[in-house]
């Protein structure tokens, strides 16, 4: 109890004093995960909208696969991306293994299925409601897609937030493809793992508190957005 209390006190000092190592780690974490979510969103939203609206053979199988990919273990994604990016791998030429770029790549792979699956669900529900009306008004496929994306904007935003939450809190992929190199690829989760094993509880706890705060804020924001949107827009 005494050790933990002491560590908590030191953690608070690190946070309040904006310790430079702490700030660097948090900054890299947020930067990597935001980039990954941006990429995943750019790929995921059009894919989700297409699967929601288009009818093609194998669509049901695609949906089942997508939903299965939601539970994709981060370490497996890490392993696959590692194989892709390693010297002998197909993308070895890029030479980005153990850099933040590799971490962004891996996290995008992890988050894209989340964006696709959730946006597909939201847009498909809206399409079921809107289809006849939009056809009646003469909307073409592109206009219909844009209308659906705009009308689902709140649930899509919470989907993106959920994706960010998943990315920033995962440890498996960034550990494998980033390598947890001090000052280069060390992010919150990998730092917590390392510092805990080293016994440096203060930094681990400080990072843990920040990570928890971040995830809580994200969830509260998503909750708030949905609530306000429901009240204001129905």
């Amino acid at each position, binding site marked *: 109890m005494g050790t933990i209390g002491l560590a908590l006190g030191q953690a608070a000092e690190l946070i309040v004093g904006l310790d430079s190592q702490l700030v660097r780690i948090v900054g890299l974490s947020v930067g990597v995960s935001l980039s990954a979510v941006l990429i995943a969103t750019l790929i995921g939203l059009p894919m989700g909208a297409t699967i929601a609206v288009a009818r093609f053979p194998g669509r049901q199988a695609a949906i089942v696969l997508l939903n299965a990919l939601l539970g994709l273990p981060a370490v497996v994604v890490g392993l696959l991306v590692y194989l892709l990016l390693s010297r002998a791998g197909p993308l070895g030429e890029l030479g980005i293994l153990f850099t933040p770029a590799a971490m962004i790549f891996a996290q995008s792979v992890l988050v894209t299925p989340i964006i696709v699956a959730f946006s597909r669900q939201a847009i498909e529900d809206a399409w079921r*409601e*809107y289809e*006849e*009306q939009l*056809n*009646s*008004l*003469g*909307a*073409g496929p592109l*206009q219909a897609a844009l*209308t659906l994306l*705009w*009308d689902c*904007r709140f649930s899509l935003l919470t989907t993106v937030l959920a994706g960010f939450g998943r990315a920033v809190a995962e440890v498996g992929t960034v550990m494998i493809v980033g390598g947890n190199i001090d000052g280069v690829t060390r992010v919150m989760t990998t730092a917590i793992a390392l510092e805990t094993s080293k016994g440096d509880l203060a930094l681990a706890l400080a990072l843990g508190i920040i990570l928890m705060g971040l995830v809580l804020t994200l969830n509260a924001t998503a909750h708030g957005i949905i609530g306000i949107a429901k*009240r*204001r*827009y*129905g």
Partner: protein
Amino acid sequence: MGEATIRAPSTLLPLRLEAVSFEAGGQRIIDSISLEIGQGGLTVILGPNGAGKSVLMRLCHGLLTPSSGRVIWSLPQPSNGRRRQAMVFQRPVMLRRSALANVAYGLKLAGIGPRERHARALKAIAGVGLAKLAGRSARVLSGGEQQRVALARAWALEPEVLFLDEPTANLDPSATREVESAIAGIGAAGTKIIMVTHDLGVAKRLGDEIIFIHNGRILERSGAEMFFSGVSSCEAAAFIKGELL
């Protein structure tokens, strides 16, 4: 004054159906209906639930394609939004934006420029008595108000023909009254209205002409007064008496 007014026929009507049938899932929902609907008056397509009324209307509007037979308008129908006929559904579909923006949305799809769009949307929304609620989010309006926004959205397109599919089926009496008066106003302004209903009261209050259909066939067609004073088919007579068909 006095510019030449001789023009090529520029009206959509009459609408002609030639032996139109529609099948879905092995079931014949519309059974070889031939029909001509001309200008003037409000035409009610009346019949019990499951008679095929809504399907018939979607075939006319172009949302469904007949399994056989033809739907012929007197003018060719462009495939984009600039059609001269519109439809309002039983359950109004409101986009997540203001009532006014919902009306303007239809005009935008029809290729109307921003300034004219705004003016026409305002006029239409005032026309259904909702000027005060124009800025409100459409999806938080009451059912009757939403249905009037839907009417305004269709009406703003200045259609020559307006299809209404049970527009008051989900509404309470006072909302029904407001929607019916909006419909009457649109009809009085010169739009041909073709309305589907299973509600005798609505048919009596609004209809000038009744087309009675049952099991995908037309059993009776006559002026509203004639229809309610004496019909020839026993199904129509039973329906008027309130018996279940």
